[in-house]
């Protein structure tokens, strides 16, 4: 029964949600809202689990004085401070304009936002270095890919108009025709694959998510 009950639940809930899509009225609409709320509640427990796991891993790193343990100290300290202000002040008072003003929002605006933006910005440097080291026209297809990349990269920036007035139009054509066709094929293929995988899970043919016996 350890595997049969979860399989049965998966099938029943899955069928209800499929029917709800076509018949949104009672009782399927109500059931769908209930299941959606249950999902949110379970997601909260998953977040809690993630937080406890994070603290455990970094706590162990500090106690063992493993390599880079001081970064773990910074992480736990930052977590504690942000959690303290978040739980103490919440999102804060509404101010004209709707912006929240409190220490938690200060940490978000002047700490989190610039740091996350910086992390993403580092990609520009890595892409440049990787492009120099790895992008080689070894085959005809690779040459075609590189030419398309050059045309799109140049066509998408304003300096291309100074080089050749037709470049932006060529770049737009590449995006609108061959790119669009390929993306549509990927979308349809992925959707069919998702339907197939979902049906297999609903019908109990796919049981990897239940773990091994």
């Amino acid at each position: 029964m350890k595997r049969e009950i979860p399989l049965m639940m998966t099938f029943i809930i899955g069928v209800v949600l499929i029917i709800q899509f076509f018949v949104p009225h009672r009782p399927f609409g109500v059931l769908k809202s209930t299941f959606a709320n249950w999902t949110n509640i379970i997601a909260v427990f998953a977040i809690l689990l993630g937080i406890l796991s994070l603290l455990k891993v970094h706590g162990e790193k500090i106690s063992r004085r493993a390599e880079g343990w001081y970064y773990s100290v910074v992480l736990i300290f930052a977590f504690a401070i942000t959690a303290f202000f978040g739980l103490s002040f919440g999102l804060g008072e509404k101010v004209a304009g709707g912006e929240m003003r409190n220490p938690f929002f200060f940490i978000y605006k002047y700490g989190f936002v610039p740091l996350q933006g910086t992390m993403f910005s580092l990609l520009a440097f890595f892409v440049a270095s990787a492009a120099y080291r790895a992008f080689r026209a070894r085959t005809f297809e690779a040459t075609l890919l590189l030419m398309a990349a050059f045309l799109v990269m140049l066509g998408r920036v304003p300096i291309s108009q100074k080089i050749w007035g037709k470049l932006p139009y060529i770049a737009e054509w590449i995006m609108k025709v061959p790119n669009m066709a390929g993306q549509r094929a990927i979308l349809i293929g992925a959707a069919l694959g998702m339907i197939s995988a979902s049906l297999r899970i609903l019908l109990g043919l796919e049981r990897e998510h239940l773990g091994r016996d």
Partner: protein
Amino acid sequence: MNLLQILQNIDRRIIYVLMFLSVIVPLVKPLGLPIQTTAPAENFYDYIETLKPGDKVALSFDYDPASRPEVHPMALALAYHCFRKKLKIIAPSLWPVGPSLAAEIFHDMKKEFPHLKYGVDFVNLGYISGPTQGVSQVESLCTDLKDARPVDVHGTPYDELPILKGVKGLKDIRLVISLSAGDPGIPGWVQIANARYGVKIGGGATAVQAPQFYPYIQSGQLIGFLGGLRGAAEYETLVGRKGTGMAGMDAQSFAHILIILLIVMANVLFFLEKQQAKWKG
């Protein structure tokens, strides 16, 4: 080591410095290169121009600070256009940090439009939680907004917000704009709000994501689209408001040229090395 080998194994820090200079110099000394607008951005602008004062528009903040440099400028330009047209903005978020980004937009817009009143001209609905891909969130926003978000981000009840009077769900409003950096985002809005309820959807996304939305543009499921910093710069040009989108395009021009030159140089060295090996062999 000969010259070929030295150039092929160039220290990556030199490349990092070149990239840094190609970005910082145009930012400090802008060239002011003109931006040519494209059809997806023009269609977006034209659709919003057809809306009347008092019409309600949803601006969904489905991105995070990592994508802020690309997506935030388009959010500012779109919000500016909407408020200039005296439209009202309802701002849900499918990402947890979306409400904070929405709050920043409204804070900046208050400086340009001091008469704007929270709850009357715009509302920050807050984060709508749900599983991935945003299907159930979008569905609930379209059909029963009050059930999806009984209070706004500040805890004000739905019925106390004048802007939400007469809005049962987002399917009742003229346009939903999704500013997206991944899932949930534009796909969820197109697949549920547009496909099921016929809601008009406009989109803005990072340049990396932009190619995947061209099928939606071609089929008309997106009435308009802004891709990356270029899209933001195009919209700023259309609304006549200088912003970080336009300011960043000079830097992006030189960064792209640098990457192209590096790739060309690397391939020239690669072919020279092959020729050298042929001659020796």
